């Protein structure tokens, strides 16, 4: 029974005990690193196989369709069929492409998607490496994606690909700022950058204390992974399909896997930073429940992102960038300073939390009001009043 209670950690212990009977100490660490590494690196692939199916089903239901239903029961093998297709599809490299850079870009982007999982806390003592700089590591790994996108756009020698790449980069850069500021607010409240420390600091999930930081991070994350309504990077009807038009076969497949891997990763980060990560009822007594809670919360965030995609129209790029710089950045900065102010007030923690929540709601209200006014002014300027339409 005790074995079951902390099932995953005990399995790992038994495994380590077994291999240490015939391996030296450094060999045990090496083997463990490699095993954990392989499991975590496969997360984006796993995410693609499950989330593409889930997304098709969810979007299908939202649009009053059934979704995939041919390959296997309820179409669950659809993703496998897609994977096989990617694998056996002919690979086409355009004539004047910069070949080494062209081939390197998908490898970099998929590798970066895998790297994110090194610091993800699945449960108590279930983390690849609990780095001192945990959350900042995640942001830093994200910058590899920026470089890979530019490489793909440049190397394809295609105007659409290059325009797409620049749009993506402008979007990634613009939304990284509110993302960093939201994370900084969480770090300020938790007092640590360790992923485990942030989870342990959430006596109540931070979403109930810092809704502005949650919304800022959530929208920024949706933009970073190019989810609708921020999916301008592959606005099919405007710039063909973005920076990876020229890619086919598995090279395209890696971009696809990176996209879904990043979707899953940012949902997991949202769950960790704002929804309490692996914390939940009885998670302290039965640590094996931790990963379950973590996955459920992550899937919940994924579902939220799919729901938004199914129901919201796409933004224009000017609206999108203006939203990042003129709404999210000032709101996140105000939130950061407000949390800092409240933390210095000589009050018990629960009162501080209520004050923070109050300030957050005020910021939300002000931002929403100003946004509404700006939208009305913009509509009037383009004479798009309901009467005119």
């Amino acid at each position, binding site marked *: 029974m005790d074995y079951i209670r902390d099932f995953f950690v005990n399995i790992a212990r038994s495994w380590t005990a077994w291999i240490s009977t015939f391996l030296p100490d450094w060999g045990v660490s090496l083997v463990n690193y490699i095993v954990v590494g392989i499991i975590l690196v496969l997360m984006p692939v796993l995410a693609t196989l499950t989330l593409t199916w889930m997304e098709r089903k969810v979007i299908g239901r939202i649009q009053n369709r059934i979704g995939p239903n041919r390959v296997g029961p309820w179409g669950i093998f659809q993703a496998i069929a897609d994977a096989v297709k990617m694998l056996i599809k002919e690979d086409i490299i355009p004539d004047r492409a910069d070949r080494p*850079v062209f081939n390197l870009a998908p490898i970099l982007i998929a590798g970066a998607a895998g790297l994110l999982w090194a610091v993800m806390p699945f449960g108590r003592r279930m983390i690849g490496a609990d*780095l*001192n*700089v945990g959350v*900042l*590591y995640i*942001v*830093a*790994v*994200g*910058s*590899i994606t*920026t*470089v890979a996108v*530019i*490489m793909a756009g*440049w190397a394809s020698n295609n105007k659409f690909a290059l325009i797409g790449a*620049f749009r993506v*980069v402008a979007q990634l*850069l613009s939304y*990284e700022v509110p993302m960093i500021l939201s994370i900084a607010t969480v770090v300020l409240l938790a007092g640590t*950058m360790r992923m485990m420390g942030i989870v342990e600091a959430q006596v109540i999930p931070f979403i109930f204390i810092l809704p502005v930081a949650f919304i800022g991070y959530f929208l920024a994350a949706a933009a970073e992974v190019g989810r609708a309504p921020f999916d301008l990077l592959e606005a099919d009807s405007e710039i063909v399909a973005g920076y990876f038009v020229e890619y086919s076969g598995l090279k395209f497949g890696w971009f696809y896997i990176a996209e879904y891997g990043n979707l899953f990763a940012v949902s997991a980060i949202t769950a960790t930073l704002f929804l309490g990560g692996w914390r939940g009822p009885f998670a302290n007594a039965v640590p094996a429940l931790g990963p379950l809670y973590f996955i459920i919360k992550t899937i919940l965030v994924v579902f939220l992102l799919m729901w938004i995609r199914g129901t919201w129209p796409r933004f224009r790029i000017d609206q999108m960038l203006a939203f990042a710089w003129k709404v999210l950045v000032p709101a996140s900065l105000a939130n950061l300073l407000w949390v800092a102010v409240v933390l210095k007030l000589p009050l018990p923690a629960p009162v501080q939390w209520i004050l923070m929540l109050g300030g957050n709601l005020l910021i939300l209200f002000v931002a929403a009001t100003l946004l509404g006014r700006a939208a009305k002014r913009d509509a009037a300027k383009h004479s798009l009043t309901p009467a005119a339409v």
Partner: protein
Amino acid sequence: MQQVMFIVLSLVTLAAALMVVIARSMFRAALWLVLTFFGIAGLFILLHAEFIAVAQVLIYVGAISTLIIFAIMLSRGVMDPDARRFNDQWGVVAGFGAVLFVLLAAVVTRTRWPVALADVPADAIQRLGGDFVGSYVIPFEVASVLLVVAMIGAIIIAREQES
């Protein structure tokens, strides 16, 4: 083990740096620059300066390389791949660089550095934050002013002329 890692990382860094200065295509040079930055971040980790390593990746790879690549794209029309990479004095400059390296190497290896090895404090990042608003508050605020002034200046310079 650390020696091996050090040698691998420094070879990668130096080779990539060399490619930065001799690559024909500016875009390729920028990509080699990114690799150089990663190598240097690795060296920082070997030196137990993890925060600086992450900052290196965040600022140099995420921000400065992007700026450089954007500038390359903006000034691309004039770059034909057959153009000369170096100016006429490049031979002299290369000699100067080699001599400089020999001089520096001589100084570095001859000097007896007052090495005082100790363990890195566990709260290095906290101390860093404390120093920013403590004894180094003037440079800290000046950094903010510098960033804003640089931004304003660059916006004025880079904006397209209003027609």
